[in-house]
């Protein structure tokens, strides 16, 4: 049924449709409305779950871990500093191969303090061993949440559903919420093979000596690589149920034959897509959206970029002293094409800076300069900085 819903509300309803048995979260802007909406669903008797109101994000992730290990479907959500605080647990969850779903309402990381949107938080934990899926809009946030549970539980790998904070979480728009029957048909009841059970006692999280550690890491890495198939299958199968695809691994929009490409993640996609119509004189542009960032979809990305002569990467985070994070990885993936492919990497929309339609011409203009820097933050107003910081 189509309904006008705030992004957070839609996500909470999607989570509820997945029948989590334990929900643990700690409020942080801009994730708060998700937790509030879930609490309301519980209070109204529309969701039966153990709602654990923890004392920190660190415990939120830990409670979810403990619950999933004890045989219950679990959920948590956070943002920014909260993701940082739970980061030790995030690595642990992935290392233990615990199936969990976490919504990251993407937000900048301080200092300086910023409550606004970019993607520095999820990017900072990209090596934790979680699957990371970036949503372009709130419909995708709903559909991806449902897919995420199936992926997580089939692969025994946690999934982080990344949703741009405020830009999506606080935007009201029409959402098609699936029915309970649709979700139940797609997502079987939670079953964790290694669930803790006194009838079959096992030890999880043991000390592993150097003779075994590399093997465990290898298995972990291979499991993430193999998850590619489940991510694609989940999107395909859910599309059969719902009639909607969320973009698989990599989505190609705009002109698929264009020689100039722009690659981005998350909610900037829609703005860039409309900018293509707004600025028709700019010529054909191929818009590439990386939906799946972990595991990194090498093959799909290479297919999406085939035939490009110029590629601009727009990302919402950076690694100071290196430059772009996504850009560096995309370059590596396209390394043998790079001789013919001119790649530039731009950080945009940091700490809530608006990404207007005019971003498109500015990016294409910057990209056209052959001797330009490999990476820069696109919209820096140097006038605002003292001389020595420019």
């Amino acid at each position, binding site marked *: 049924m189509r309904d*006008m819903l*705030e992004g957070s509300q839609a996500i909470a309803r999607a989570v509820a449709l997945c029948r989590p048995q334990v929900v643990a979260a700690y409020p942080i*802007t*801009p994730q708060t409305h998700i937790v509030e909406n879930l609490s309301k669903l519980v209070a109204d008797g529309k969701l039966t779950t153990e709602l654990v109101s923890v004392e920190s994000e660190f415990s939120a992730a830990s409670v979810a871990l403990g619950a999933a290990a004890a045989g219950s479907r679990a959920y948590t959500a956070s943002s920014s500093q909260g993701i940082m605080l739970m980061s030790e647990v995030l690595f642990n969850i992935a290392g233990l191969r615990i199936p969990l779903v976490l919504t990251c309402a993407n937000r900048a990381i301080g200092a300086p303090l910023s*409550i*606004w*949107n970019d993607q520095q938080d999820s990017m900072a934990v990209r090596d934790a061993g979680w699957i990371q899926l970036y949503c372009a*809009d709130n419909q995708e946030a709903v559909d991806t949440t449902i897919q995420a549970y199936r992926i997580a539980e089939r692969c025994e790998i946690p999934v982080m559903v990344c949703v*741009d904070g*405020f*830009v*999506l979480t*606080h*935007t*009201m*728009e*029409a959402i098609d919420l699936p029915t309970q029957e649709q979700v139940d048909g797609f997502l079987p009841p939670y079953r964790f093979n290694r669930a803790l059970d006194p009838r079959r006692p096992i030890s999880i999280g043991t000390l592993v000596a150097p003779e075994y550690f590399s093997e465990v890491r290898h298995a972990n890495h291979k499991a993430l690589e193999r998850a590619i198939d489940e991510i694609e299958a989940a999107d395909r199968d859910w599309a059969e149920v719902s009639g909607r695809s969320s973009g698989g691994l990599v989505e190609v929009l705009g002109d698929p034959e264009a020689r100039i490409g722009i690659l981005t993640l998350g*909610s*900037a*996609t*829609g*703005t860039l*897509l*409309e*900018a293509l119509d707004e600025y028709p004189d700019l010529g054909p542009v191929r818009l590439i959206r990386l939906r799946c960032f972990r595991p990194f979809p090498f093959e799909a990305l290479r297919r999406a970029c085939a035939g490009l002569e110029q590629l601009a990467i727009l990302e919402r985070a950076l690694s100071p002293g290196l430059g772009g994070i996504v850009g560096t990885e995309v370059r590596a993936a396209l390394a043998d094409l790079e001789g013919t492919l001119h790649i530039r990497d731009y950080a945009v929309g940091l700490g*809530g800076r*608006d*990404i*207007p*339609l005019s971003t498109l011409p500015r990016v294409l203009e910057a990209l056209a300069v052959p001797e330009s820097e490999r990476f820069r933050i696109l919209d820096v107003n140097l006038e605002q900085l003292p001389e020595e910081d420019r």
Partner: protein
Amino acid sequence: MLEIRIHGRGGQGNVAAAYLLAGAAFETGRHAQAFPNFGAERRGAPVVAFVRIADAPIRRRCQVLHPDWLIVQDDALLTAGGVSAGLKPGGRILVNSARSAEALHERTGLETTVLAADSLSKQFLGRPMPNTALLSAFLTLTGLLPREALIKALAQRFKGDLLEKNSQLIEEAARQVPEGGWNDA
């Protein structure tokens, strides 16, 4: 695509107004999007929210820089500057004010349409909550959507007595401004 920017103060239901307007558009089968200009503002601080209404899906996520219309929930914001920034040529401004449009023009140099939404809402709701009255007046002035759509959207949030009182407020606010008054130009 029509774009509306709503200015108000924290606590005035600014985001709720944007959500309501988008909800009303949805009730008529239009595509709509509403979002706040996200801030950490507390009660009383100036806040902004945006609404887009279109006949096709809306995919852009940027702020509304060039609104077709402005709704201003507190006339003091007009003197703060920046409120009318980017307003399209021919764009109109609806202001909640106890003053006359002439008096406001004298103070701010802006052409506005005025609704005394504070006193009106106090009369019907018992407290100054200008947003629904302003939305009703806005829909009356523009003819953008029928009032029933607004009441339908309101019914998603409120029930019973509060819905009834708001519906009465909406009817009264509609009587205070000329029907289609912004379409003359």
